[in-house]
């Protein structure tokens, strides 16, 4: 297919203006992933990886590059600004699409909750007088008002936020490397990449199941396919570029931070939500630590929640529009041009679940694992969609792109899922079971999943 292939053959019509270039798509992917994402979960990744966070991020990046390749294939086949829900529904069958959408809902719906929690912990580390739960309420309230007023990211604001986050990262790297050269922390070593004392594949894949959180959002680029000046081919390139860029940045920052960890033994014994800020304090004192935590709070709690809210609203809207979720979730406010119910649902969930998680010792880690579980299951199905759509149905001769790469990507992700947090696996299975019940209910009610007509509408002259 050509980059500018029509979406009309899939029962939809071109809606969104095509005006976003490659750089803007990459920036959008980066703002969704947050270039300084490891600041917040460094402690959990360090703990889970046995002190090898660099390896965890490297394996995570490779795994998701395969996923990005499968995304690129499905975006090419179905250039719709949907999500994996759309691709699985069309590539395999609508009920599979429903279950995949249900799985990734776990990611999309819980993501804002995690973002608020991380931002609150970061702010609490800067202003400890205000408890985490109070910061959580403040972040949810501020964001809900912003979202309900119809304010959202613009292309310019995306660039400004990326520049600010990169500036903070550069500051940390420069001061961190300078501190290491001055003899603070530990001397340079490859142990954050490979430590024979703690290495095992189960440890690595278990750590990837945590680290992969930092990469989630790269798939958000697919939402802009209808606006992309280069169509689906450009979206595929942007996903790969964003992943590689983010991966390189993540690896650089966790390598430096791992060498600055003040008490490696303690962090290996107990994960800490403030481990990165503690490492930053070793290099640049309280000032750098506070800059890092404030940057995390703003990027996670404001910039990323804005784009995450759009993503969850779009998924809820698409599934509700296709009568696979209650119709009230597709309701929008005409007055403010916002998806009111989706925003309020996310706010209520974030206050309830986020508040509860803030009282748990490993709340961030558990919430992150749940989000990853939803995304990873959905990504596995995405790989299956490529194989079914191209190799089985389309009898494609391109074995590398349409069979071997999806199979490798799927195998890595399955290993990651198998080695993930047991609690996350249990909750993930319960969530999928619940989805199966809802699906059975839809069938019983005669509302079996269906996507808009795939036939080519007649074109006028």
């Amino acid at each position, binding site marked *: 297919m050509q980059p500018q292939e029509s979406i009309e053959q899939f029962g939809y019509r071109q*809606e969104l*203006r095509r005006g*976003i270039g490659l750089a803007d798509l990459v920036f*959008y992917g980066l703002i969704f992933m947050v270039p300084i994402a490891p600041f917040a979960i460094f402690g959990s990744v360090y703990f889970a990886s046995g002190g090898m966070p660099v390896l965890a991020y490297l394996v995570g990046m490779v795994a998701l590059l395969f996923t990005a390749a499968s995304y690129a294939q499905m975006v090419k086949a179905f250039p719709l600004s949907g999500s994996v829900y759309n691709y699985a529904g069309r590539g395999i069958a609508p009920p599979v699409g429903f279950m995949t959408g249900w799985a990734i809902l776990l990611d999309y719906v819980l993501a804002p909750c995690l973002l608020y929690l991380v931002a609150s912990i970061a702010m609490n580390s800067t202003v400890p007088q205000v408890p985490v739960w109070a910061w959580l309420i403040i972040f949810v309230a501020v964001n809900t008002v912003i979202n309900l007023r119809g304010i959202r990211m613009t292309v310019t604001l995306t660039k400004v936020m990326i520049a600010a986050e990169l500036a903070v990262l550069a500051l940390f790297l420069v001061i961190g490397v300078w501190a290491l050269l001055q003899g603070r922390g530990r001397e340079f070593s490859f142990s954050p990449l490979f430590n024979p004392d703690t290495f095992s594949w189960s440890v690595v894949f278990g750590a990837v199941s945590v680290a992969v959180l930092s990469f989630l959002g790269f798939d958000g680029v697919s939402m802009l396919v209808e606006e992309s000046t280069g169509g689906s081919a450009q979206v595929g390139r942007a996903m790969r570029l964003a992943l590689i860029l983010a991966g390189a940045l993540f690896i650089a920052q966790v390598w430096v931070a791992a060498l600055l960890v003040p008490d490696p033994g303690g962090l290996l014994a107990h994960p800490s939500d403030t481990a990165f800020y503690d490492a930053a304090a070793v290099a640049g004192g309280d000032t750098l630590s506070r800059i890092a935590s404030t940057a995390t709070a703003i990027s996670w709690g404001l910039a990323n929640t804005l784009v995450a809210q759009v993503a969850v609203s779009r998924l809820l809207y698409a599934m509700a529009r296709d009568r696979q979720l209650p119709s009230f979730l597709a309701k929008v406010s005409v*007055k403010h*041009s*916002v998806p009111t119910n989706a925003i309020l649902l996310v706010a209520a969930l974030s206050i309830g679940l986020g508040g509860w998680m803030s009282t748990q010792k490993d709340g961030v880690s558990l919430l992150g694992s749940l989000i990853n579980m939803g995304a990873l299951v959905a990504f596995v199905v995405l790989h299956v969609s490529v194989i079914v759509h191209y190799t089985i149905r389309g009898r494609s001769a391109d074995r590398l792109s349409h069979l071997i790469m999806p199979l490798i990507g799927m195998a890595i992700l399955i290993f990651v899922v198998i080695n993930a947090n047991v609690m996350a696996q249990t909750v993930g299975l319960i969530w999928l079971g619940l989805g199966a019940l809802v699906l059975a209910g839809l069938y019983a009610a005669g509302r079996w999943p269906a996507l808009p007509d795939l036939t080519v509408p007649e074109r*006028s002259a």
Partner: protein
Amino acid sequence: MPAAKDTFAAMNRLPLPQELYLIAHEPSGKPLVHQSSMALGLAGAALLELALSDRVTIARGRGIVADGTPVGDAVADGLLPLILRDRFGGDVKSWIKKAAGDVYDRTRGSLITAGVLTQVTKRRMGVLSQTRHELADMAWVVRACSGVRSAVEGREQPDARCAALCGLVGVLKVDAALYLGRPSSQLVGRLRAIAGENSPVVQEVVGIVETLINEAAIAVYR
């Protein structure tokens, strides 16, 4: 086209986009809905003005120009060149989206030209300059609302134009401007039903405007 202009004058009514504009604004000029929703509603109204004047034929989401002569309304006629230069394969959704770009300014401009609105510049807190487009005479709004109110109350059988206005008022959810004292959900349902019962073209265009308003609310970038 003077003859067509005379038609609007003889009916003592404004064209559809202008009537919708008046209903969807407070007399002080403050809009009752978000600008993107408003623009899509006005663009739908302009297209319906052309369709109901037999200039454009619409069916199953596609449209073609049946008669390229102007209808005498600057806003609706402004849509004709866009449709004639169509690069969207007759896709009505694309027409409405494209037209929504400047339809608000065009509608407001035509109302100023007709003397229905007056431009007023005030200073807020004595410093910030603010321009509002206030209603010159309430009678225009009363007239715009009267057909819709009669249709909702069942006092008159609505014609296609009135049904179109009912549908768009329902989609934009500016029913409060009708002062009918009924619950909004009930009123919106009734307005949509009137649009649906009258003409397939009205039903289709109103439905497309509603879909576009929903999609604008979940757009990544505005």
